């Protein structure tokens, strides 16, 4: 499709440039305006970084908060597309719920109407190029700085400068274009005109991927008298509908929640558009009333267009908010949750790659997903039930009860439920971490190490299992007791990790410290017990060598699981993590503690 549409667009533009220098100026104005939007988006992405994501996390527990966030962020950034993309990214990463996401989209639709106010109220009434030039100069100088903050500010300033310059050229272009050809003679009145120009608005917004650009063209053309007020209103409605194409494009690489949000966006905008078309006359009465009461002249069509734009979006919100519950239900029916496929990543997706903090959180959640799958493999590998590990039952007593061996193909389960996920995590992190800031790269590295530690622990349990399943049902009480001790000890570690996992952000790692010391003490005790058991002839030599090997595996399993726990649940902040590593006891220091109990 692109192969056909793009050459056609180029051909039309080239013909337009050839026959009309004014058209060239208008088109260049649009191009400069769109370029300014790109700069602005890059600036906000670089400048706000984690702050925006932190605000988003804290402001989405209530619908009114989500909507307010949508309004304010879109008003400041002048881009509902950027806000939509961030929201879809967060939703895909499971950081906000669907209702909160929809609230943000509703708010963003209202926030975007401030653009029309800025252009109509400010952009057209002053010599905007005079402001654009210094903003461009200072902005570009800042953009070349090495500091991330200065660079971001530079992009924002230059972006605004390009925006203003674009508006200036469009304004000039339409003014002189009027002398050559009066587009208003092609105005289509009535309902037909309403539908036609709504369609043009949708088309223009989809092509330019910016409702702001469509609105700027509409407002500047309206100010120059090149289009009628009625047709301009229709273009504004079309721009509102066409803008959800960005959300739809952004949702292609998102998971089912992202797609639900894009659908909600489309439903909201289409509903708002239809309502505006159907109730056009009534809305215009209200527009005139508001204009009269806030001192806007009856023939100030551009400001009245701005009122109309804000009004029909507000109307859309008032209609849709009470229907939110039904909307969410319908979305869940249209996009049902796919059956949980334990082998596929749940969180890794391309929608999160643009936002470092979200990317790190996504990887963390996926490693936790890996751990959840590994928990089954580890528990069953030790012939323990997961519900027993999760309970408060005494694991030592539990392991002493008569054993029934679990039918369990550890290689098969590992291959299907763990290795596939681990491969996906390694591939995703390798591919995406190259462009990340240092701090985020370090955090991703720590999470990947945690994933590796989990996988290593499983491999060691695999090695142990062959002897374990033989000796826990052995008639020899001594060897049986030793292997049960190993099971209980590792079960305790799994239990503690489960507690940390459930505690979330409130995880207290002191318990892991205690387990580390326990692990070292167990190792010393086992060596002593082994010598005694051999001397007293209570275990055979093959049993002894098996136990020696498996005690090493068991030690490694414990070490890897504790390391994974520290990586997954330890401090996120790089500085605090480094401090924790500096004061971590090494093997020698831990050994000293074991040997000097006082």
């Amino acid at each position: 499709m692109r192969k056909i549409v793009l050459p056609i667009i180029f051909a039309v533009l080239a013909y337009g440039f050839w026959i009309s220098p004014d058209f060239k100026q208008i088109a260049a104005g649009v191009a400069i305006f769109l370029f300014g939007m790109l700069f602005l988006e890059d600036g906000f992405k670089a400048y706000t970084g984690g702050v925006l994501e932190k605000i988003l996390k804290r402001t989405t527990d209530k619908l009114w908060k989500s909507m307010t966030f949508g309004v304010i962020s879109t008003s400041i950034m002048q881009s509902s597309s950027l806000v939509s993309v961030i929201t879809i990214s967060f939703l895909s990463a499971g950081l906000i719920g669907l209702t909160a996401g929809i609230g943000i989209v509703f708010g963003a639709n209202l926030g975007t109407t401030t653009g029309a106010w800025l252009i109509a109220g400010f952009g057209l009434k002053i010599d905007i190029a005079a402001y654009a030039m210094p903003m461009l100069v200072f902005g570009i100088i800042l953009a070349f700085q090495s500091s991330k903050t200065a660079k971001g500010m530079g992009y924002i300033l230059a972006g605004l400068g390009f925006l203003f310059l674009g508006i200036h050229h469009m304004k000039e272009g339409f003014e002189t274009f009027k002398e050559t050809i009066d587009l208003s003679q092609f105005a289509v009145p009535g309902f037909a005109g309403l539908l036609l120009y709504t369609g043009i608005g949708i088309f223009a917004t989809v092509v330019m991927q910016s409702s702001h650009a469509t609105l700027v063209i509409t407002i500047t053309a309206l100010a120059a008298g090149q289009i009628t007020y009625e047709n301009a209103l229709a273009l504004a409605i079309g721009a509102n509908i066409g803008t959800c194409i960005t959300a739809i494009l952004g949702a292609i690489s998102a998971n089912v929640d992202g797609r639900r949000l894009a659908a909600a966006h489309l439903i909201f905008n289409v509903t708002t558009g239809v309502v505006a078309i159907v109730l056009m006359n009534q809305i215009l009465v209200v527009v005139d009333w508001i204009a009269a009461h806030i001192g806007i002249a009856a023939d100030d069509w551009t400001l009245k267009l701005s009122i109309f734009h804000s009004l029909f979006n507000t109307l859309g919100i008032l209609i849709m908010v009470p229907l939110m519950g039904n909307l969410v239900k319908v979305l869940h029916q249209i996009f049902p949750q796919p059956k949980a496929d334990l082998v596929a990543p749940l969180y890794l997706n391309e929608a999160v790659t643009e936002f470092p903090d979200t990317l790190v959180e996504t990887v963390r959640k996926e490693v936790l997903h890996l751990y959840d799958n590994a928990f089954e493999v580890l528990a069953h590998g030790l012939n323990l039930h997961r519900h027993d590990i999760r309970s408060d039952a005494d694991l030592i007593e539990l392991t002493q009860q008569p054993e029934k061996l679990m039918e369990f193909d550890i290689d098969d389960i590992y291959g299907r439920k763990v290795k596939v996920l681990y491969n996906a995590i390694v591939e995703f992190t390798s591919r995406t971490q190259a462009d990340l800031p240092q701090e985020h790269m370090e955090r991703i590295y720590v999470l990947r190490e945690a994933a590796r530690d989990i996988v290593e622990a499983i491999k060691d349990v695999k090695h142990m299992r062959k002897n374990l399943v033989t000796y826990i049902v052995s008639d020899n009480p001594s060897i049986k007791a030793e292997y049960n001790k190993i099971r209980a000890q590792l079960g305790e570690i799994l239990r503690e990790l489960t507690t940390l996992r459930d505690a979330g952000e409130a995880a207290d790692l002191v318990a892991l410290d205690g387990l580390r010391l326990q692990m070292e003490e167990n190792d010393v005790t086992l060596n002593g017990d082994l010598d005694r058991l051999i001397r007293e002839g209570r275990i055979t030599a093959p049993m002894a060598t098996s136990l020696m090997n498996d005690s090493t595996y068991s030690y490694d399993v414990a070490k890897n699981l504790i390391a994974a726990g520290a990586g997954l649940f330890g401090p996120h902040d790089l500085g605090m993590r480094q401090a924790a590593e500096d004061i971590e006891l090494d093997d020698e220091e831990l050994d000293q503690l074991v040997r000097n109990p006082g």
Partner: protein
Amino acid sequence: MAVKKFLKQVAGLFDLRKQKCKDKKVCLEEAVGRLQARQVELEASLAEEQTEKQRNKLTKQLKVVTAKRQKGEKILQDLAEQA
């Protein structure tokens, strides 16, 4: 009330005092401070705990926390002497 709380939370995000610690000494001091507080909590819990199993668990945690705190204080002392 809810609006005030929300605005406070937003302001808190920009509060420089709560910014991540970037200085090694500051981070270490914070880590040692947390360990000191944890040590006190563990000692209190140990004094109240009756069951042997839990007492053993708390004793081990206390040993490691104390050792880490002491290690942290030594590192801070060395940093102070170097400065």
